[in-house]
């Protein structure tokens, strides 16, 4: 039920007290003149009240004592010593090593530019001058996975395992995909590739030495990824529907 002059967004903002006074006055006048507008506003008020009730019910769930204790311990140790990023463990599943990987095509095309704390190497290529964009990367299989694989899914490529992590648009309006490649001799590579007119270009690769136990990665690696994503103006991850639409667009 749309009204000629007043969008749902504006009427909702009025109900939520988010409108500037002059606009709010106009909405009030419109609501007095048209009972359908008044009803629409009242409906938004009702959903707000209901949701507040629901929030109160959830709020009554007590905070687990062990969680609070752990948080207090974190605060205590942060006070006691300077921040130590190696203590911050990223919270991700461990993975199984692949068994029959032949890493030559992938590994040969990756430049290890700088050693970093936490067992990571970074290789970054903004203009494709050297390193990452060797003739072999992305390999046809990886490019195919970038073209089609929905985020969250994995696929075997070149003997390793490719996992699509997320898709987003950068500030240049290019579709970019974050993905991981895992293989015993490569370790794990967290990578970002963006789609230009000529195809997929790898723009960032963080290569992690695999811990002997296949355990947790230092969070610093993901923080570095965050910094990189910030630097290219990465938008929020696309929803699965938006991603599917963007990939269809790429396929055309």
């Amino acid at each position, binding site marked *: 039920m749309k009204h000629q002059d007043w*969008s749902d967004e504006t009427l909702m903002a009025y109900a939520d007290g988010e409108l500037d006074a002059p606009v709010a006055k106009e909405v009030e006048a419109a609501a007095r003149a048209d009972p359908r507008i008044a009803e629409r506003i009242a409906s938004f008020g009702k959903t707000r009240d209901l949701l507040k*009730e629901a929030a109160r019910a959830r709020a009554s*769930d007590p905070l687990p004592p062990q*969680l609070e204790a752990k948080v207090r311990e974190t605060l205590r140790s942060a006070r006691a010593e300077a921040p130590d990023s190696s203590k911050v463990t990223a919270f991700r599943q461990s993975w199984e090593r692949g068994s029959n990987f032949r890493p030559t095509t992938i590994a040969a095309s990756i430049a290890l530019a700088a050693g970093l704390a936490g067992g990571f190497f970074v290789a970054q290529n903004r203009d494709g001058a050297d390193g990452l964009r060797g003739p072999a990367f992305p390999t046809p299989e990886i490019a195919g996975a970038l073209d089609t694989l929905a985020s969250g899914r994995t696929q075997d490529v070149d003997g390793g395992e490719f996992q699509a992590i997320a898709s987003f648009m950068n500030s240049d309006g290019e579709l970019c995909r974050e993905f991981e490649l895992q293989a015993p001799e490569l370790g794990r590579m967290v990578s970002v590739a963006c789609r230009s007119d000529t195809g997929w270009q790898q723009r960032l690769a963080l290569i992690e030495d695999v811990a002997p136990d296949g355990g947790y990665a230092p969070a610093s690696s993901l923080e570095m990824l965050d910094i990189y994503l910030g630097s290219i103006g990465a938008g*929020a991850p696309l929803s699965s529907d938006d991603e599917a639409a963007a990939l269809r667009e790429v396929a055309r």
Partner: protein
Amino acid sequence: MEDSFEEHLIAALPALRRFALSLCRRADIADDLVQTAVERAVAHRDQYDPDMRLEPWLFRILRNAWIDQSRRRATRGTEIDVTVSPEAATVDGTRVNEARLMLRETEEALAALPDDQREVILLVCFEELSYAEAAEVLGIPKGTVMSRLSRGRVALAEKLGIS
């Protein structure tokens, strides 16, 4: 002694955990997520602008931690229904009153919404963030917050028979 940042952070834990639960729907993962967010917040507290409210900043950190994690999680294991709180579990048929029924229906309707709409509703209607704060947490324009929020609430109203 705790400073005001720490006190405020402790005070925000219930809201953080609620938000975490709404994202991952598993109590154990939610607790780990809160802990991860706290660790990141403490490590980056110099980036916090004291003129801003702490909660939206914490929510944003927690949401980013969740994205890091969930996007890398091929299988999510068993998700629990967030409505299975101790309170909801005591519903026994004879003592169901109308308000509680409505509450359950609200939760069910909420759970059926698309993720992007539910997320905005949780931030604005549950955690009482302003539209601008929610936009900041989600990294999207305020106009997008408003359109998702209004679509979500219109859908809720229709499901719940409110017109």
